[in-house]
């Protein structure tokens, strides 16, 4: 069954993707997310746009136009220093959060 994206986690996933794969265009990012989730993520590719603009406005990514291997024009997003820092913080926060939830669920069982 496809799962919904948790509020606020999309930013983290995009930042992670960019940190791992280097500069990517929106399509590349969306593909990567679907690939990793093995298609369990219910993702209209368009839904990543608000997240993209949000993290760009925070100064976590910088966008620039480039050409794909197939010679198409596309806007590439590259993670910035601030983005890497934010990624660390967000990862840490997610881990804590996930840990708390996991712990809670484990105790309840």
């Amino acid at each position, binding site marked *: 069954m496809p799962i919904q994206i948790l509020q606020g986690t999309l930013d983290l996933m995009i930042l992670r993707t960019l940190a791992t794969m280097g500069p990517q265009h929106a399509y590349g990012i969306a593909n990567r997310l679907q690939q990793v989730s093995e298609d369990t993520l219910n993702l209209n590719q368009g839904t990543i746009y*608000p997240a993209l603009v949000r993290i760009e406005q925070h100064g976590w990514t910088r966008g620039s136009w480039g050409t794909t291997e197939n010679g198409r024009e*596309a806007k590439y997003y590259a993670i910035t220093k601030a983005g890497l820092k934010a990624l660390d913080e967000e990862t840490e926060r997610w881990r804590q959060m996930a840990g708390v939830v996991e712990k809670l669920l484990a105790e309840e069982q």
Partner: protein
Amino acid sequence: MTHWRRIVAKLRNLLGNKRAEENLACEVASHLTLLADDFERGGMSPQEARLAARRALGGVEQVKQAHRDERSLLWIEQTIQDLRYGLRTLSRSPGFTITAVLTLALGIGACTATFSLVNAVLIRSLPYGDPNRLVYLYTPNPQFNLPAEVFGPAYSDLYDLKKESTSFQDMTAFDESVFSLATQGSAERASTARVDGDFFSTFQASPELGRAIGPSDNEVGREKVAVISHALWQSMFASSADILHRSLLLDGNAYQIIGVMPQGFEYPHYSDLPYGSAQYKTTQIWIPLALTPHQMDDRDNASGNAVARLKPGVSIAQAQAEMSTLMVRLDKLHDARVRGWGAQVENFVDGTVGHVRSLLWLLLGAVSIVLLIACGNAANLLLARAASRMRELGVRVALGAGRSRIIRQLLTESLIVGLVAGGVGICLAFLFLRVLPLLNPGNIPRLNEASLDTRVLLFTVAVSVLTSMLTGILPALAVSRIDLTDFLATSSSRSVAGAHTRVQSTLVVVESALVVVLLAGAGLFIRSYINVVSVDTGFSRSTVAMNIGLDARYSQPERVEFFRNLFARLAALSGVEKVGGISNLPLSNSEDLREFEVDGYPNKKGQLVESRLATTQYFSAMGIPLVAGRLFTQEDKSDQSVAIVNESFAKRYFANRNPIGGRVSREDDHTRWSAVVGVIGDVRDSALEKAPEPQIYELDGNFGGGYIAVRSTLPAESLAATIRSTLHSIDPNLAVGDIQTMADLESEASAQRRFQTSLLSLFAGIALFLALVGLHGLMAYSVSRRTREVGIRMALGAQRSDVVILVLRKAALLLGLGLAAGLVCTWVATRAIQSFLYGVSAHDPITIGAVCALLAGCGLIAALIPARRAASIDPMQALRTE
């Protein structure tokens, strides 16, 4: 909240944020292409691939909208944050906020008010189609040593020009006349323009009711029609709907009303024509000029005024060139004795407002200086406040606020102050405009139409925003340069404050310098005004005078009889001492020039002199003194055998001779002479500022119209009432004009000077006040910062007087620097106002001295208050603070 957010987002989209939109469109398109490429590679047809790509993306428009919402959210939210934070901090220090707002409001209000005048007089378009294509036509003649504007073209010349020229689209001739307009049971004087058939089409003005005067109305027998002004329609006909079935009685003739002009069209105005009639304010009635064929062919009968509209794309220079060429030919058709008629085409708008343009720009310049001073003050207040907020801002920086974020926050605060000040400023300007009619000198066209229209309000908003930025940028930059390590190390704001006071002191010095310039300007204006009003006019101020023009009901002998009767009845009144008549009263803006020669003087051809016709008692009625010889007597014959000249005439034409017994030639014939029997004192005739010109007076034994002058021991009002009732008893249908004392005329003649002097003085006063507030604020601030230092000094034995001197010395230094800089600026600036001055040099030492003394005195008083507070510091208390 969401709803509100979306409205703002929409607003933002409206304002265009085109680049982000284009960028987004490209990005989405590229995304779709990439998707489609992959689907195609997977084996779909191009069309299927495109559809699949759209499905995968999930709705192009939804994606874009989601992007937009997200995009503008951060911006809006930060702005809202800044605004709320700004409002909160401002309301927490009301003293600061109110002072800053009022300071800027004074500056912005003064600016708005002045700009509304500039807008009404110079910018707002005249209601005459495209006024920039209108021109005045003149045919100057170098034979006469007179300004070109005196010579309207002869009717025949004008109509030939109209036929032959190609530069003009329309051309019209018109005249100003004062008619007696019959009202219920009485009559009043109505300013009437007699216009030819093309007047209204030239001005591209159409009536709001009925029709305008056209060419057919100018045919003989059809000319008894009239167009009236909106004002007259309201006042005389109570805006009645059947106005087009009513008629007017002008000088006893009935004129059918055919049209009503809209409000705002009252051309010509008194101030429009350089040599317009003095009896004229605004035009209330237009009637056909109705020239006879004979008049239209007459090359010696000049039309009063000619206005033409240039064809689109034709420049004034081109029109001038064409008219000059045509006039060369037309000149040859003139009487051989007087030829040399040239051509002059002048810009209409310049003719209407040219004479006040420099004055209005000068006032706007002065008021900008006031605004700059207000900005300086507000900046100083903000700097002082920033220093005391150093801890708060330091903490924000330490918590990670970026430099640009802090600057933005501070600018938002100054923007709030600026906009509120703009609002208050508009209220101040509104009040000013209510008072303005009291100051209106009457010769600035459309001054009373000044209002706060959209353009003025936009100007105010722009000025407010600019002011906010000017005011806010300095403190914002200074504060954002906070060095975090410094801040944390000292744990107080002391270190950063030092740099600020330097900036603040500089601002106060600059303000004082600007004030010096304004004060000097105002001082010179005041001195000029005093010089003008204390000029010796040469006549008595208490004499009562009026213009009486008898209408067409009277024949020439009846006119003479009327005035004989009037003079006799007025002279018989108890309290009335002398009654005289004159063709041209001083300061009445009327002139009569004639050619003349002086016996035994090297006369030049075309030599002109101001010429007057006076009755025997005129000079004594006006209080004009006899310098030599005698006045006219009853025994003198009014056949031009005797003449009286003024002192200027005697000095110029009878230098080193006795004028009494000398001879001057008669107007029509240079071989016949009048004997000079007396010399009278000079009077100021055309303007208070203008030195008297030579004049010849001749006896008018058959006075039949013009000005009468009455000297009496009665108060002016009761004398005027008596004259009015006397006139009414002689002829109840006579329209009686204004009855004024010569002092009233003097006051009118100095009205523009009074206007400019009071405005400039007001601005200089505001500037001085603001600068003193600024100085006081800085001194108070520095005293409060140095409390501890003062405490230590006093603990170590400093006297209270030492402390006062310490503070005053600093104030004196700032003022001294300001004065010095200001005097340098003044030296340059006052030269620009040279043309506005009368009887005082642009570098008048008395004015400069007074300005220095005033600024120094007021400045030291402003500094004394904080100085005394410093001196009253209790050392024990002071040492315990901080």
